[in-house]
């Protein structure tokens, strides 16, 4: 490979402006009097698929040979011989490495640290995401120089596309024998959205020296508590180990928010026996307590129509959406919700006896409930939800409440019973709550899976490592929607 040719591979997804970036680079080089060639294999990949654009620059202005020959440039990147790889997203950086385009002795890898999740990651029933840190460290290992920042964020902030930020970063790494103003001139010649592109370019250029300044810290649990909850918090502080505080606080706040302070107090009462068990086990991390605290809070705050209505009408939500959708001061925001209540959900929030009657009544089952769109930003729509949310006061008497409390208690009893003999299995058991989530059909399916997994508990306990077996059953239940994986796993027991 001649040292005289500079090779640049751009890995992008359809619609990200990878082609624009390649065009800018070619234009930049040609205006400097260099010979440049670019090509790509867009094909159907332009429809959101992964695409590679490849540019070669021969940075010499005069013909260095007597026959006046033109350079013969390659139409595809050669693994091990690429100077600069630009990846518009972190997994695409991984793809460049996988294809051997990034080499330790040669390649500068410029990659955005943000993720555009693959279909495989998105469709998982639980968490199917690849760990970004692993990709970042693989990239650091593979490249000669690894330049990484959240370029998508920078693009968003400057109201432009990621291609302009990446072009800035390319200028920032100073590997091309061209100055910053030459890069900027190329953008200006492009002629579309110059102002925002220039801002994005500058952000990309500066990021090279500053590195990734984005913070990945999650929002801490609110520490500002009202007087009633402060009392409960004190109780947690005094009688529970500090390792578990994080979960108990979060659970307490959630349940007070969900129902009332009494309900939060019930929650803590229910965790007392687990704390007793921990004392026997002497697990310094109090894992069982923590996990039970987490899943118990989730179960006790099961999703019903009252909860959904309550969450939908909040002030913070209105503010958050206004922010998220970028609604400006001189614009109006209208909000509509999509509901599909079934008779079951209506019965759930009715008083137990009435709800039970409704479900068993033949007439009621014949009522066809259609989808409803409720406009929360209108008085009428807001009031509907406000009234439903107000049913919270009578929730304790509702059909669903009774059912869920019974099931929660049974689950807790199970955990307690198992914990005395098999601590690890008890931890796995807490996790079974993960299966119950969603609404309507999804919730129904999750429940059925939960019952099936719990039903297998006696058989699980006969295995060598029951906790691992139970965990694998839970994962199998989350593996597919049809329940085939779980069925297979249960048969294999």
């Amino acid at each position, binding site marked *: 490979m001649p040292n005289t040719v500079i090779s640049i591979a751009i890995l992008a997804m359809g619609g990200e402006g990878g082609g624009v970036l390649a065009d800018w680079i070619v234009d930049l080089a040609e205006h400097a009097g260099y010979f440049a060639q670019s090509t790509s294999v867009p094909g159907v990949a332009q429809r959101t698929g992964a695409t590679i654009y490849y540019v070669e620059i021969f940075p010499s202005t005069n013909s260095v040979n007597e026959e006046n020959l033109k350079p013969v440039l390659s139409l595809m990147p050669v693994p091990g*011989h690429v100077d600069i790889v630009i990846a518009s997203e972190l997994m695409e950086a991984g793809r460049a490495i996988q294809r051997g385009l990034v080499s330790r002795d040669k390649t500068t890898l410029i990659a955005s640290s943000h993720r555009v999740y693959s279909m495989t990651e998105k469709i998982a029933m639980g968490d199917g995401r690849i760990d970004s840190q692993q990709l970042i460290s693989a990239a650091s290992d593979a490249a000669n120089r690894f330049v990484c920042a959240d370029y998508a964020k920078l693009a968003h902030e400057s109201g432009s596309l990621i291609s302009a930020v990446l072009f800035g970063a390319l200028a920032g790494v100073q590997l091309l024998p061209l100055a910053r103003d030459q890069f900027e001139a190329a953008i200006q010649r492009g002629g579309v959205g110059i102002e925002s592109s220039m801002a994005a370019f500058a952000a990309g250029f500066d990021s090279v020296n500053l590195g990734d300044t984005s913070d990945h810290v999650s929002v801490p649990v609110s520490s500002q508590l009202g007087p009633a909850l402060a009392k409960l918090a004190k109780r947690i502080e005094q009688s529970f180990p500090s390792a578990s505080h994080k979960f108990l606080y979060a659970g307490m706040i959630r349940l007070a928010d969900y129902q009332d302070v009494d309900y939060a107090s019930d929650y803590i009462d229910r965790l007392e026996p687990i704390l007793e068990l921990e004392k026997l086990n002497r697990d310094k991390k109090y894992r069982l307590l923590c996990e039970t605290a987490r899943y118990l809070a989730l179960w006790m705050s099961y999703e019903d129509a009252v909860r959904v209505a309550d969450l939908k009408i909040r002030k913070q939500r209105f503010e958050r959406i206004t922010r998220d959708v970028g609604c400006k001061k001189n614009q109006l925001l209208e909000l509509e919700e999509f509901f599909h209540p079934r008779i079951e959900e209506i019965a759930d929030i009715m008083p137990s006896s009435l709800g039970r009657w409704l479900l068993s009544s033949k007439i009621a089952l014949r009522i066809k409930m259609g989808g409803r769109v409720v406009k929360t930003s209108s008085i009428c729509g807001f009031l509907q939800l406000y009234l439903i949310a107000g049913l919270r006061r009578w929730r304790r008497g509702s059909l669903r409440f009774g059912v869920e409390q019974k099931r929660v208690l049974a689950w807790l009893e199970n955990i307690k019973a198992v914990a005395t003999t098999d601590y690890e299995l008890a931890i796995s058991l807490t996790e079974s709550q993960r299966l119950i989530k969603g609404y309507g059909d999804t919730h129904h399916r999750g429940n059925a899976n939960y019952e099936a997994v719990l039903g297998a508990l006696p058989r699980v306990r006969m295995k060598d490592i029951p906790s691992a077996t139970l965990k694998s059953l839970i994962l199998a239940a989350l593996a597919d929607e049809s329940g085939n994986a779980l069925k297979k796993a249960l048969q294999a027991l």
Partner: protein
Amino acid sequence: MAERSFRQEVGKLRLKAGEEFRGEGILAVAKALLQSGVTYVAGYQGSPISHLMDVFADANDLLMELGIRFEHSASEATAAATLAASVNYPLRGAITFKSTVGTNVAADALANLASGGVTGGALIIVGEDYGEGSSIMQERSHAFAMKSQIWLLDPRPDLPSIVRAVEKGFELSEASNTPVMLELRVRACHVHGSFIAKNNLRAGFTLADAMEQPVRDVSRIVLPPASFLHEREKVEKRWPAAINFIRKAGLNEFLGEGNAEIGIIVQGGLFNTLNRSLELLGLSDVFGRCRLPLYVLNVTYPIVDDEVHRFCSGKRAVLMVEEGQPEFIEHNLNTIIRRLDLGTRVFGKQFFPQAGEYTATVMAKALLEFLEAYQPDLIQGRSNLENSTKGNSSIDPLVHPRPPSFCTGCPERPIFSAMKLVERELGQHHVSCDIGCHLFSILPPFNIGAATMGYGLGWASAAAFNTPNTERRTISVMGDGGFWHNGLTSGVGNAVFNKSDGVLVVVDNRYTAATGGQDILSSTAQNSLRTTNQPIESAISGVGVDWIRTVRRTYSVDQMRSVLREALTTKHKGPKVIVAQSECMLNKQRRIKPMMRKLAKEGHRVVRERFGVDSDVCTGDHSCIRLSGCPSLSIKDNPDPLRSDPVAHVTDSCVGCGLCGEVAQAAVLCPSFYRASIVSNPTPWDRFKSVIANALIGFLQKRNERRLSQ
């Protein structure tokens, strides 16, 4: 009108002699056609030659000035048949399509054309969709050239060579009365480069001249006895004429240093990659000055025996660099060398992989083996090669494939969401697919579809599944592009005639979307050059289908589902067709975005819609994603400290198509979705309503806040 506008590029087509053309390979071909005095151009769009069609569509004024007829052919067969104009008249014509799929469709006309031969130059420009980025079966156009005796050009992938191939291609065609095929690989079509232009040429003999003084010559028509004479003429007259022309014009190139005992023969299109791999081994430089003799075949069919003789004489061995299989050229070389009784050994697939694209790494490996066997002292860059063969598989688990998929807001997605929901009720059905964007249904998250047999053949490929022994019906899918291409006859007509009981879904998105959004008969756009607005339903009903349902908005999943359910369960016997209409979102956005921006700027009331997910309501099951797969519907960290599974999330790119909400309702999923309508320049009435509502809502929200701060 196509997805991309080529107004700017049209200017390049007007460049005069001596000016420098800078741009894409396939656009250089367009300019070369004009420089060659072409009188008609036809074709069927498809990667990688769509841009040639699109730039001509935008260059109508220029074409009129030059007296050129340009057609968007109904199919590749139509395009190929168009070349009949060059049979009797000295008219230069060119056609273009994606190969080998398009060549398959065109084969009948091409074979007839090649049999009778041509008077005017006839050029068939094929985009060889082979290797990385290809969306079709991996085959060679070479086979078609050989079987019909059409000369095949495979020029070096730089603009001057490509332009020369077009110009010389016409001359070769006329000199040998044979159509010529110009093969351009994907990267060559999209390569950016430059060449020095010539003036455009207006043909001396025009279409009008031909129409006013018609000529007929029975000896050019494929019917016995002429057809038998044609075969003789092909080998006795046209072949020698072609060989003569190729030699005299020097279409093939002898490069490199001439006196080594070994040499390399390469298809012109692979030259740049070969040179890069030779550079890796220290055998060439960036200017292509190779230290080995090279014979570059810019014409890959026919092979010129004399030139092979000249190149191979005195050589112990030659390496044939020929991509794809079967290795027709290698076979041909062996035959020539055996007949000439030369001692040269020919190596090709012995060192090269039998199948797959020839990358620089693949080539360098084969070269190395060849050199080690014949001239090991020449090898210099072994370590270079080691660098380039190192893949990195440890990262495999971290990298998921990212296949193409339906775009954000695509109207085809809800059709398959509905199909999935119907599947839940009625069980699985055999689903027969077609070619087009809708084929992405075979991939996650939909996983729908069992086979695809070709463009417009969606319903035809379910033809066997018609038996009274089951109540279950098959579902076939066809795009509007495939429908007009041939599906109306091969699918719909066939189903009517054979009393099929199957169900067809015609995806009517108003463009041939997958090829770049070109117009077709049923497009609703007003197109000054073409006739549009011809309803698909009329055509279907015209061939005798009496069960037709039209869904005017595919996004209403509920309606889509009921229509599908009805089609699959109705007592009505006979073919059933559902026409599912909604405009291709990619093209729609391109159309309306600038319009909306302009209206808002002018102070008109404009509403932008987009969807969102309430993170605290979403429980992280992702059912919605499994039923939609929209790129703008993604996931993000769960803000809830107690939950670990990520929540669904709608990104900025959302175009507010409404599918999320519709699916959530139709599938009874969850109430997390909301639609936000952002009203720019609201009317006084809007403002009044909003002030009143906000006052009450604000009051109630404050009350609620008090409870929460207990």
